[in-house]
């Protein structure tokens, strides 16, 4: 089952005793604040979790996979996420192949 913003807010309410409105508001602000920081051109490092890192990509020739048509891919800025040590360690263990 996927975890959603509503689930996280519910758990903040249950475990920390935030009221439901505050919990919901907090979760919204947490993600919108990270977005705003990234949009402003800064990276975000969250120790114990991971780093959101911006990368500027050069333009390059590409192809529309549906039509086979050549297209130019414009230069762009993208965000990547690099897991921190703790997250890596917690996730890598139960390696069940899919």
């Amino acid at each position: 089952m996927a975890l959603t913003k509503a689930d996280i807010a519910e758990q903040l309410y249950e475990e920390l005793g935030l009221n439901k409105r505050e919990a919901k508001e907090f979760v919204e602000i947490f993600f919108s604040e990270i977005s705003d920081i990234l949009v402003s051109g800064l990276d975000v490092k969250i120790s114990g979790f991971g780093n959101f890192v911006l990368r500027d990509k050069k333009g390059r020739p590409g192809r529309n996979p549906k039509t086979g048509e050549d297209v130019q891919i414009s230069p762009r800025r993208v965000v990547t996420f690099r897991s921190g040590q703790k997250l890596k360690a917690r996730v890598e263990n139960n390696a069940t192949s899919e």
Partner: protein
Amino acid sequence: MDLKRETITKSQLIEKISLKIPQLGNKDVELSVKTLIEKIIDSLSKGDRTEVRGFGSFSVHYRKPRIGRNPKTGDSVSLPGKNAAHFKPGKVLRNKINNLHDID
């Protein structure tokens, strides 16, 4: 290559959030951030996704076993398969970062 960028740390993020939600206070924001992160990690460690509309989703990708090399000695080492966390930015975030207007 990218220039070294300025970085916002977790404590700076906590301060920024506190300013936006003053009724919570710094301490509660700190605890909430910690708990939120813990929930996402718990969910990923069970193999479950986290989906945040507009922002993006965190999921687990399986990495196949492979033969690696010790870069110092050149020896081959067999590396077992493992799971790794993956973040896929949502369309809204992607477009905002790339300075595009949302199409829908």
